[in-house]
């Protein structure tokens, strides 16, 4: 299944694109998404342990299965306020 991931802040700058589309097996989880993303973009790896995954505008754990219709974004450490 194709999953399009939105990237923000330093993650977007590192990849050089606002979105990345990944081809993942059915039932793939956030962990699978990170595995493939870090393989394609090794510069993201240091952010894996400090970033969170958002699915349809809510934080989810990395073990949650993802679906192609989900809106997925990676949320690096936030700094609003």
């Amino acid at each position, binding site marked *: 299944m194709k999953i399009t991931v939105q990237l*923000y*802040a330093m993650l977007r700058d590192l990849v050089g694109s606002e979105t990345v589309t990944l081809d993942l097996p059915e039932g793939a989880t956030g962990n699978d998404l990170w595995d493939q993303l870090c393989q394609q973009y090794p510069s993201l790896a240091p952010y894996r342990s400090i970033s969170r995954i958002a699915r349809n*505008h809510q934080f989810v754990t990395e073990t949650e299965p993802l679906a192609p219709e989900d809106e997925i974004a990676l949320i*690096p*450490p*936030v*700094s*609003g*306020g």
Partner: protein
Amino acid sequence: MIRTAQYWIEITRNALVLENYLPFIQDPGFGAFVIFGGTVRNFAEGKSVQALFYECYEPMAEKELERIAQECFAQWEVGRIVIVHRIGLLQLTEPSVYIIAASAHRADAFAAARFIIESIKQRVPIWKKEIFADDSSQWKHEIDLGKQ
């Protein structure tokens, strides 16, 4: 913008004007309101800052702010809440955020305002980039790959 009778949540590229929000939090049943404002400071981690750039994952940020407001209503006797955050390029001294909590008694308003700003700093998808005096810039929490 998400606006109900109880809360007003807004993310905007325009300069924040505090007075615009005050009529919303007026109510004869309230005895107190607390305002928290965040402003652009001229230093960060020992470096001189000349401006801040804020970026946002807007649809999620608004929903997360709404969830935070709803948690306040569940936790305290608070009557009305305003959360407005500016994004884009902000100059020194400009306000980046206003939080207003109004309630019958001051303790609830103080507690809610504090909870809201601390929650923003933990879980609302807004990011700031510091633009330093020498024109270099860096995202807050950016990992310095040279130091790894």
